[in-house]
């Protein structure tokens, strides 16, 4: 070996060694025979009640199992997808991931999520509702155990409806419009004092969630069954966009207002939102929470078939995990084994005011004495439509949000908004496959 060759080898080997050291696989135990395997779990349960709620069953598992231990890592939800990306690219991906199901297509396409083994997929298909299974699946294949499920329903302020001479929440869109116009109030300067129906540009999930809940209630879908194009440019889509545009134009909705604060302050009569909000409203409103009611999302006509939107999270196993069998076993223990009649995950979610896709568990946990406002969300598990999670779903959602805002602010007509959404979303969704 010549000295120059040796130097060249050294020059090549040094960065490689540095890279290898930097990108080494995460610590998986000592590797010595008999030492436990350490599984890592990355979730967004980073603080407060959620962190404690997840740590409880993990501690229980660690106390009961000598061979496989679980270590949790948590980041804020806003950093979750980025953390998945960075850790995966650096070879530091955790064994178990807890993604928002909207990202599942993106994660599957990038080869991050491992399909559930047949026995687990079968268990998931049998025990969970269709919406939960749909959220955890991509292209008909199950990729994890559904955890928290959020369905959308109509929150209403009983006091404001009573003051407008209305006995109860609207069941149809004509009733919704009528109630919205009767409850809305503005001052002489055009400031909204009370929104009849709260449409909000707060964030992607709020804006799109409200619209998709109405779209699903009208029998429409955002994305086609094969996931390769949008289906919003339809009679149902047109009806939803028409309804929202009318509500804004006639002053019953003020999309710029922070609806989460305004509803809690008694400045919004009705708004569509997900079940997680009940816990926040209780904390924010105190005794005034008794004026809050929840009803199913109104339908275009009284005899329509009920439907709404559902979103969710799931626990899946990383393709890079060196211990997939152990990881799936832990997930089965956490999500499928029953203790006192319910799974640990269902008990965990109920303890923080959320739901899982196991309706029987949730009925048992919520019982008859719980918050009656949670029951419409629980009932909706049976008929909810999962949020599309095809590759490119996040971008499709952002594009829809932009077009909805353009519609609400008068930048686009209903026809233009439908056409523009279809063109932009089709382009992105087809590109992502």
């Amino acid at each position, binding site marked *: 070996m010549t000295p120059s060759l040796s130097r060249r080898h050294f020059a090549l080997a040094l960065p490689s060694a540095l890279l290898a050291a930097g990108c080494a696989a995460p610590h998986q135990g000592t590797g010595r025979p008999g030492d436990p395997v350490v599984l890592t779990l990355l979730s967004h349960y980073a603080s407060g009640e959620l962190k404690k709620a997840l740590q409880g069953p993990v501690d229980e598992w660690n106390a009961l199992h000598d061979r496989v231990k679980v270590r949790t890592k948590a980041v804020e939800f806003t950093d979750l*997808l*980025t953390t*998945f*990306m960075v850790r*995966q*690219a650096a070879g530091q991906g955790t064994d178990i991931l807890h993604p928002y199901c909207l990202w599942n297509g*993106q*994660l599957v*396409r*990038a*080869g*991050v999520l491992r399909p559930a083994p047949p026995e687990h997929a079968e268990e998931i298909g049998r025990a969970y509702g269709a919406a939960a299974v749909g959220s955890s699946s991509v292209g008909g294949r199950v990729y994890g155990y559904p955890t928290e499920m959020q369905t959308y329903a109509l929150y209403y302020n009983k006091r404001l409806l009573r003051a407008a001479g209305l006995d109860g929440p609207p069941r149809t869109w004509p009733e919704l419009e009528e109630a919205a116009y009767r409850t809305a109030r503005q001052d002489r*300067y*055009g*400031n*909204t004092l009370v929104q009849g129906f709260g449409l909000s*540009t707060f*964030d992607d999930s709020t804006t799109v969630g409200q619209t998709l809940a109405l779209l699903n209630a009208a029998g429409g879908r955002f994305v086609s069954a094969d996931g390769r194009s949008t289906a919003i440019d339809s009679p149902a889509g047109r009806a939803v966009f028409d309804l929202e545009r009318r509500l804004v134009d006639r002053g019953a909705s*003020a*999309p*710029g*207002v922070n609806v989460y604060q305004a509803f809690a302050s008694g400045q919004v009569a009705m708004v569509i939102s997900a079940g997680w909000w009940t816990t926040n409203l209780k904390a924010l409103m105190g005794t005034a929470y008794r004026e809050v009611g929840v009803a199913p999302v109104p339908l275009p006509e009284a005899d329509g078939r009920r439907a709404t939107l559902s979103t969710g999270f799931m626990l899946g196993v990383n393709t890079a995990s060196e211990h997939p069998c152990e990881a799936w076993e832990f997930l089965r223990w956490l999500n499928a084994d029953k203790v006192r009649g319910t799974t640990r995950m269902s008990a965990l979610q109920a303890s923080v005011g959320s739901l899982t896709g196991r309706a029987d568990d949730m009925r048992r946990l919520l019982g008859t004495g719980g918050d009656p406002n949670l029951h419409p969300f629980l009932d909706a598990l049976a008929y909810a439509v999962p949020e599309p999670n095809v590759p*490119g779903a*996040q*971008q499709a959602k*952002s594009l829809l*949000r*932009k*077009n909805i*805002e*353009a519609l*609400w*602010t008068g*930048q*686009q007509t209903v026809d233009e908004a439908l056409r523009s959404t279809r*063109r*932009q979303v089709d*382009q992105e969704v087809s590109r992502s496959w």
Partner: protein
Amino acid sequence: MVNATLAPESTERAARDRSAGLGVRVRARRRRRQAVVAYLFLAPTLLFYAVFLALPLGFAVLLSTSRWAGFDLGDIDPVGLDNFAGLFADGSTFLAPILTNTLLFALGTVALALAGSVLVATCIDRLRFQGLWRTLYFLPIVTTVVAVGNVWKYMYQPGGLVNGVLNAVGLGSVAFLQDPDTALPSVVVVQAWASVGSAILVLTAGLKSVPESYYEAAALDGAGPVTVFWRITLPLLRPSLLFVCVTQFLTGLQSFALIIVMTKGGPGDATDVAALEMYRQAFSYGDWGTASAAAFVLFAVVLAVTLVQLWLFRRKGEDA
């Protein structure tokens, strides 16, 4: 004879040559050794630049011509210039409204901040307690963008301070951040307000460097304050103005935080800018190729705008 007499000379020459060659070699070796030592001293800096500048830049070039979802380095798929073509393809929103918004945002910010800072700096220059005034105007710089954005967002709300003032004088409320026509100008005002402090610092320093004799001569000639400002102050402030103009433009073109706090790019695309779009493409949509291509387009725009500014100022005789 000749050979006999020449022989010692040639031997001497050969010896001199040998000695000279030896000297050259020694000097060369010394120079090499010095170069090695110099590079050893430079190594930390070079390593720093390699890790934090050259490597990311090279990676960005690679990504801009590839398709990558951000998860596995082995999945980087070369696509040539497709990402750039996609940015300017029919139906893409990158050129309009995103890049247009970016330029309008930067232009508006520079115009407002420059006008405001020249006015305020000139006033401060005539006041007592100049340090106090400069500190007061500098406060927005030391406040986090998130705090600034949120405070202004509440002030712009229907029922907020700004609309309260409008209502008090009998005017109707304006949906500043909700109306696509007023959203971008509203954010521009905040960005200009937030950046005026640093411009004032630079301009007041520039004003101090204007020789007092010019003003005395102007006063003797009977020049009024407006003439003095246009004919003396402003031309002599040109180096400071150039610095403020270039740095404010750079900040404006790359602005991201204030917009994400105040409008998230909405309503619709009304306040969407290139930096925000790049962030979304990479971190939300997992399209690192498009994000990197957009970054290079933005870089080209920033470079072009900066060169135009330098050229304009040089035409006026100012050597930057």
